[in-house]
């Protein structure tokens, strides 16, 4: 560690490139905490948006019409409005009417933190896309397969869980992959409502140390690294789930 710090101190002295996050303990601590926050935000919102997608696609096939309308309205609205405005709407408009609770020192803090609002906004936004993606996958499942489950006495939920969803999942993995990559990139929007994720903290650091270009490049590389990791994992998963005879 000391060697790395020494190297970047030397780099600053010799070239003027100022990577404070590698030798300044304070900047290093807050930046890596932000990195963890970004990872957490991405992980939780991926999980939550997948759950929304699975549940929403199931509800779209329900026989109870108002439920279908509700899901369709949700998908149409969240797919066609800017995620940033959604996030402001959640944090500033809805956040203003949610109750507050006293914290340890008696200060009134909102019941729903800005991290939680970011999580909700990102999950609902990506979830709307996931519903459509799962729906397209479900439509690709042959009708005869669904009829076969009925003949075997599956309930609709049973057939969805054991037959339709596993097949649909494999069909829509590439599209899902794309959307999840987008979701990871969209976590930067949490910056706008003050969640201390990577972009936010990078901004603080370059305001203090005036190393905009260096931090900018670190940010770009880290995000591309994160996205590449996700793409690599999803491709491995895609290969592991591949069924002989399905797809090219």
């Amino acid at each position, binding site marked *: 560690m000391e060697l790395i710090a020494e190297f970047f101190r030397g780099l600053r002295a010799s070239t003027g490139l100022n990577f404070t996050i590698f030798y300044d303990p304070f900047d290093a601590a807050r930046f890596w905490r932000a990195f963890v926050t970004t990872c957490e935000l991405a992980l939780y919102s991926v999980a939550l948006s997948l759950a929304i997608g699975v549940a929403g696609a199931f509800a779209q096939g329900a026989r109870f019409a108002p439920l279908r309308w509700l899901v369709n309205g949700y998908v149409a609205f969240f797919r*066609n*409005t800017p*995620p940033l405005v*959604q996030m402001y709407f959640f944090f500033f408009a809805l956040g203003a009417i949610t109750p507050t609770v006293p914290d340890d020192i008696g200060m009134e803090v909102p019941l729903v933190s800005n991290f939680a609002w970011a999580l909700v906004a990102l999950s609902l936004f990506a979830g709307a896309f996931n519903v459509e993606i799962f729906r397209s996958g479900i439509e690709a499942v042959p009708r005869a397969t669904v009829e076969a489950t009925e003949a075997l006495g599956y309930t609709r939920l049973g057939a969805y869980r054991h037959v339709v969803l596993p097949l649909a999942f494999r069909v829509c993995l590439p599209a899902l992959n794309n959307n999840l990559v987008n979701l990871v990139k969209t976590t930067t929007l949490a910056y706008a409502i003050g969640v201390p994720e990577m972009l936010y903290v990078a901004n603080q650091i370059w305001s203090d140390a005036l190393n905009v270009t260096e931090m900018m490049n670190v940010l770009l590389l880290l995000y*591309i690294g994160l996205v*590449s990791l996700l793409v690599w994992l999803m491709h491995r998963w895609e290969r592991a789930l591949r069924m002989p005879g399905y797809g090219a």
Partner: protein
Amino acid sequence: MPPRPPAPPARFDDPRWAAAVALIVLLAAGVAQAQAVAAGQPGVVETILKWTPLIGTGFALNVAISAIAMAAGTLLGLGLGLCQISLLPPVRAGSWLLTQFFRNAPWLVLLFWCIFVLPFRVTVFGATVDIPNWLRATIGLTLPVMANVSEIVRGAVRSLPGGQWEAAESLGFNRGQTLRMVILPQCLKRMTPPWMNLYAIVVMSTPLASIVGVEEAMALTRGALNAERRGDLLIPMYGALLLAFFAYCWPIARATRWLEHRARVRA
């Protein structure tokens, strides 16, 4: 047990959804209106109408940014996409790397990058020209558009059967002619739906410019809310802004759906 009738296909682009969404917003506005009138303040609807001309000009800037970024990004992306299918390995590898880089970087980070790294003033032939913030933001949005168009072009060319290339070759077309007269005209139809989809995404990304200080609809809405200092306006004002974007993007989504559907029937 009688066979269950197949559930009607779910359609998110049914016009009734727009009507339902509009109705809910109107209802919410009505309730807020009633409360405001009871409290002796100007009504919510009046206040929103008062700010509409100003926020409307901001929205026009959103549309302008999206149109310029889309036009420039499409031209650059077309070139980059053709480089991706070049026969020269270094050109192919270089353009692939460029495409992946700008496709995988978050739009907001690219926007910050353009705002901070691009010069805010350039001197051309002795004349000093200021580059306004919104133009730099537009450049920031052009880069990811370019990368996405590049992928759309590559995907469309690859989706054509190889027989097209061979047939053109047997008719004596060279590579440039094949691309220009055989491949690209066929790709155009395939590229239109994803291209329109991309445009909707660009429009929905323009509020990001407010974060880097461009006075577009989002920034002006926040400004209006700060000026009014009224809690009951928060939900209606943000709701109205959401609705404005919805009204602009949803027809595009419907048209995209329609084009995709038409292509599927023909295939």
